[in-house]
């Protein structure tokens, strides 16, 4: 019987079975940012520990950085302190930092792949739940909390329980105007926000095989929104070609050997899965969330559910979501007025996302009264987009073109909703208050759909705007 990529990677990195019964797992790459690390470094110092593998940890700043005025010191003294603290900690422990001012800075889940740090067959950890993103390369990537950041810094290991593996096949061809974001929202809609608890999701099938690396990153990114701590796509020729020539990719003389090892990591054809689920790509349409978790989602041509549409045990949750969002239930999602449009985040802040959004924005204008911002995922994304003139397209259409960071995905910087504003957002979470206003409202959708909503002033079907 063959093995899954999960099993191969787990076994290769297993150090020992711990007295608690968990597995001690070696972490091949540890990514660090400013929000979940300062307390971990402080604990290391207090205990007198060291960081034994400093070159296997890489740091950047993303969560709190302003996207308009990045001059130091920041206006927010606490944000400034967090950045200073990370700089001090990286210096003290010899950890490479791609900080503010570096052309490699950006959202941690955007720069890992684009620098070639993220590679197939690795174990990866980061104090951020969207670490599942890196699974796009066939890596096993776990989001962890601060105490586990401390564990990895001090020992390069995590204590973990193994996951079951669910194979998710997406077969067929996506229609024009339907993106990886719509696929993952369709998956979460069917399997639920807690359906993946205890699982790693292995994505495959012909639609996934044809996806670019950036699309696979979007897909794996939101595994955690379905409850799955990890999600991955088996490495293939697309993966190998993406990595060729990247800064931290193997040197040319080693590359062929590396590539053959990477491909050997893929799940075997007869690998066992705990269960399998299948989706038809052609049936997926542009998706929009209407509620307060990413599973509360409909296709753009559908109506928002009414409490009476759902089973008894779901009715209260639907009523709560409708009340918070200000929907009556039963109305079409199309036509929902928006106040803010946000294009960016670790889910959809990459070059291909900006290209698709710019196709919609080109030659059109942001609707009066709508505030629209584009926040590239990294300095490299920003530079590449500017080389193609995408910044000009967006600016001419009335979008603000900002500096890279997490920005309005979680609003730890000055980019926030106000009051009960409704935001069309390419990010990953529509939780209550997520975008900075305790009463703010989020509609998740693809970047192209956000651009379409920005110019229409309301939710529209992007397929009517793409030629």
């Amino acid at each position, binding site marked *: 019987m063959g093995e899954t990529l999960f099993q191969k990677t787990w076994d290769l990195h297993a*150090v020992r079975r711990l007295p608690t019964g968990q597995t001690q797992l070696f972490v091949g790459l540890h990514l660090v940012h400013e*929000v*979940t690390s*300062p307390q971990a470094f402080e604990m290391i110092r207090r205990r007198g520990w060291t960081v034994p593998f400093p070159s296997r940890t890489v740091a950047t700043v993303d969560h709190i950085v302003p996207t308009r005025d990045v001059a130091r010191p920041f206006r927010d003294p606490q944000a400034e302190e967090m950045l200073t603290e990370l700089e001090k900690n990286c210096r003290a422990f010899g950890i490479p930092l791609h900080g503010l001012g570096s052309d490699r800075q950006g959202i941690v889940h955007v720069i890992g792949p684009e620098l070639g740090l993220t590679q197939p067959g690795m174990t990866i950890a980061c104090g951020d739940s969207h670490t599942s993103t890196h699974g796009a390369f066939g890596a096993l990537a776990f989001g*962890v909390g601060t105490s586990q950041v401390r564990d990895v810094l001090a020992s390069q290991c995590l204590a973990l329980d193994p996951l079951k593996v669910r194979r998710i096949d997406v077969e067929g061809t996506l229609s024009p105007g339907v993106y990886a974001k719509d696929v993952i929202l369709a998956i979460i809609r069917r399997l639920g*926000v807690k359906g993946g608890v205890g699982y790693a999701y292995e994505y495959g099938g012909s639609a996934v095989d044809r996806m670019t690396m950036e699309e696979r990153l979007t897909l794996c990114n939101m595994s*955690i*929104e379905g409850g799955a701590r990890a999600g991955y796509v088996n490495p293939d020729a697309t993966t190998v070609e993406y990595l060729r020539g990247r800064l931290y990719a193997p040197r040319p003389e080693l590359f062929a050997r590396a590539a053959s*090892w990477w491909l050997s990591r893929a799940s075997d054809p007869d690998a066992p899965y705990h269960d399998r689920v299948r989706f038809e790509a052609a049936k997926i349409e542009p998706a929009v969330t209407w509620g307060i978790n990413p599973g509360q989602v409909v296709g753009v041509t559908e109506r928002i559910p009414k409490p009476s549409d759902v089973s008894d045990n779901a009715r209260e949750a639907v009523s709560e979501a409708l009340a918070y969002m200000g929907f009556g239930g039963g109305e079409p999602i199309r036509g929902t007025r928006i106040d803010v449009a946000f294009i960016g985040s670790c889910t959809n802040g990459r070059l291909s996302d900006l290209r698709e959004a710019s196709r919609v924005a080109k030659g059109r204008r942001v609707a009066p009264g709508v505030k629209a911002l584009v926040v590239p995922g990294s300095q490299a994304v920003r530079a590449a987009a500017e080389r193609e003139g995408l910044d000009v397209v967006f600016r001419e259409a009335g979008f603000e073109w900002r500096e890279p960071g997490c920005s309005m995905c979680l609003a730890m910087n000055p980019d926030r909703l106000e009051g009960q504003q409704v935001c069309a957002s390419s990010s990953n979470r529509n939780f209550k208050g997520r975008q900075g206003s305790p009463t703010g409202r989020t509609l998740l959708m693809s970047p192209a759909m956000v651009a379409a909503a920005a110019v229409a002033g309301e939710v529209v079907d992007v397929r009517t705007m793409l030629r």
Partner: protein
Amino acid sequence: MTTAITRIEGTALPLRGDDVDTDRIIPARFLVSVTFEGLGEHAFEDDRKAARDRGVSHPFDDPRFSGARILLVNRNFGCGSSREHAPQALWRRGFGAIAGGSFSEIFFGNSVAIGMPCVTLSGEAIAELMDLVSNAPSTRLTVDIPSRTMAAGGKTFPLSLPENAREAFLTGRWDGTSMLLERFEEVEAVASRLPYLRDF
């Protein structure tokens, strides 16, 4: 460094609702800090304000439940962001254990790491306990880790806690870094066999 955790005893606070995410437990603006200190007072800050605005009392502001040691929740508690600030905020507010229908994995692991057991009970048991505590807030509950039981109001409910976590609490190994450093030569042995750390 750490001590065994065997039993958590005290009054309880019922917090109803599935899928309570960590953004609600502690909104992101309170994460702009280099320490966990002071987080306890901000737990559920926005939910509490929203309740006040509606003229109702959030359980966290209800004086009948002040000083509670055990938090009662429903299913998929702690989903979303991996922020350890969420269990830290609850722990710093005085909770020693959380009993619920189910928990997100990352939240569960973060809670183990700070010595706050998250134990799972059947939906019926949680509903019964929430009703009991709502009607009689001074009821004392006991989470007993060795016997995997919850005692309340003269009744005993079975609870589940994965064996690994149970073992970690009972042996004081829940603060795991020391354990991971115990046989460091084995860590180095794994590092030395990884193709990507040795030029493939």
